[in-house]
């Protein structure tokens, strides 16, 4: 589903050249729940940006659902993001001036879906996160945990190939964070692949596999003890 081989990402300024990812290779299969951990500046967010087609890679190969994304135009990458990837951000990234219904509607509109189908999907997504009754509310009327559940509903509403979560519990208290993690676990149990960047080892231990990054390279890729029955995945490292 997601294959990166020898991916490099170099940021250049006039004075400095930074290798954010260096010969980074990773394969993630359908149905996995993979956490990406590592210290600050190790390349977690760069990996997430490249995996989510938010940034281009400098060298190497990235196959997303067998499509070589390095050859795609900006337009094609936008369309691929819309159809294949669901994003969950640390700060939720909801539109403050839009109500919950319109927030979840955003990716579906970019897909050009008919209004009736959009409404059906949005209602279903809001039901799944327990916020259907508040669909006319704006994000500021919700708690942090509720806002993140809306963001999860928005990520799920388009039936993506996988979810990319960037520190999804980073702005939440521990109780709420556990609630969000439980929700993500349930979503994964229902068959959705999840790739989650986090610095929280406790949360990482709740996933099926943890990939640890150090200096732009994978330092370890281990199955976590929670998922004893899971099959090990091939890793390029």
């Amino acid at each position: 589903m997601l294959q990166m081989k020898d991916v490099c990402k170099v940021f250049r300024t006039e004075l400095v050249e930074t290798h954010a990812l260096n010969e980074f290779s990773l394969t993630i299969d359908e149905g996995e729940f993979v956490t990406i951990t590592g210290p600050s500046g190790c390349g977690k967010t760069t990996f997430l940006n490249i995996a989510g087609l938010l940034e281009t890679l400098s060298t190497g190969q990235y196959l997303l659902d067998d499509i070589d994304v390095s050859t795609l135009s900006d337009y094609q990458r936008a369309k691929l993001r819309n159809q294949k990837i669901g994003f969950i951000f640390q700060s939720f990234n909801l539109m403050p001036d839009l109500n919950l219904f319109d927030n979840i509607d955003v990716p579906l509109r970019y897909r050009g879906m008919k209004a009736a189908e959009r409404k059906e999907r949005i209602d279903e997504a809001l039901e799944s996160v327990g916020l259907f009754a508040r669909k006319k509310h704006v994000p500021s009327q919700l708690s942090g945990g509720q806002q993140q559940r809306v963001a999860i509903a928005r990520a799920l509403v388009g039936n993506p190939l996988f979810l990319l979560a960037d520190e999804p519990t980073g702005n939440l208290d521990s109780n709420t964070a556990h609630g969000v993690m439980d929700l993500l676990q349930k979503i994964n149990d229902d068959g959705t692949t999840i790739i989650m960047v986090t610095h929280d080892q406790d949360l990482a231990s709740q996933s099926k596999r943890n990939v640890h990054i150090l200096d732009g390279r994978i330092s370890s890729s281990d199955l976590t003890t929670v998922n004893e029955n899971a099959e090990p995945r091939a890793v390029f490292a």
Partner: protein
Amino acid sequence: MEIGPILRAMIRNKLGAVLITLQIAFTMTVVINAIFIINERSNLMARPSGLDEANTFYLSSVGYGDEFNGVVTVRDDLERLRQTPGVVDATVTNAIPVSGSGSNTGVRLVDDEAAATSFAAYYRVDEHAIETMDLDLVAGRNFAAEDVQWRAGSEAITTRELIISQQLANNLFPDREPNGVLGETMFINGSEAHQIIGVVEQLQGPWPSNSSVELSMLQPNSSVGSSATYLIRTEPGQRDRLMAEVEEMLVASNSNRIIRDLMSLEQTREGSYRIDSAMSTILWAIIITLIFITSMGIVGMAVFGINRRRKQIGTRRALGATRLEILRHFMVENLMVSTIGVTLGAILTIAFSIVLTSSFNMPTMAWYYTPLGMIALILIGQVAVLGPSSGAARTEPAIATRSI
């Protein structure tokens, strides 16, 4: 299209949009009415006087001393002028069209002071006036030399022939063709009965701002005293040269007079319409300033809105928006603000126009001003917001994951 969500978001965050909407409405009201006023002024200024203005000039001769003989001088001067190479013709006159200075009189069809009276300007000229002024005689005949009365001082007028403008003929005899008014009698200067012998297509009076500027007539007589005004038409391109030459020639021909007020008809027109012209310039300055300020307001609101929502734009890009869709989002947002603004502006424009019409006796504004103004302001808004929107469209989706 995201009209629904954009509108709902705008309602939740309405202060900026309301201010720009009001600015657009106010701008449209002022701009459309100002353009209408300018067009009205331009139409007035563009009205032909009936004369060959580009090739015509005039000057005044003022005699002094006991040796000065007005009648002889005028006849000699006219003879010299007509024989000057490059001069088409010359006449003596009591007034100059569009100059702002002249004479008029009440005109009636019956000798009854209670009867309806029109006021018409009159030019006291000789038989060369039609050729000098380059007037188009559409009916009747020109004055003959023997029709012209050369009067000394306050000698009574004995001539009874008149050539009138077609507009005056239409006013007096609404249902008649120009030929149909020939031979009719008009009473002017009280009870003086005069006969219409000719009709010219157009001849404006001396007062351009007067509503009866098109009502005028020629009388075949000239009061010759110490001063006289000569109107001279030249061949095309000869005017400026001849203005200097003629002045010099007349000065040299008689040492008992001075020449003054040498001026072309174009200069006269420019002077007479100077206030209208200045008003148009001021109104254009107001229009340009208002449009500039409004455009800057739209740009400012767009830039502020885009900067405020930079992370939202990145998020939209991350969720699958193409650059074109981001561009369209902000263009549609502006289109909606502009549409509300110009709709409100249209109501204000029409209301303001009604006030102008009723208060200042202005003509009614043509229907197309308002829709054209609406379209123009919407286009200006779209052009103004294009730059900021293009900048927004270049936002990288990776901004969505940054802590900004």
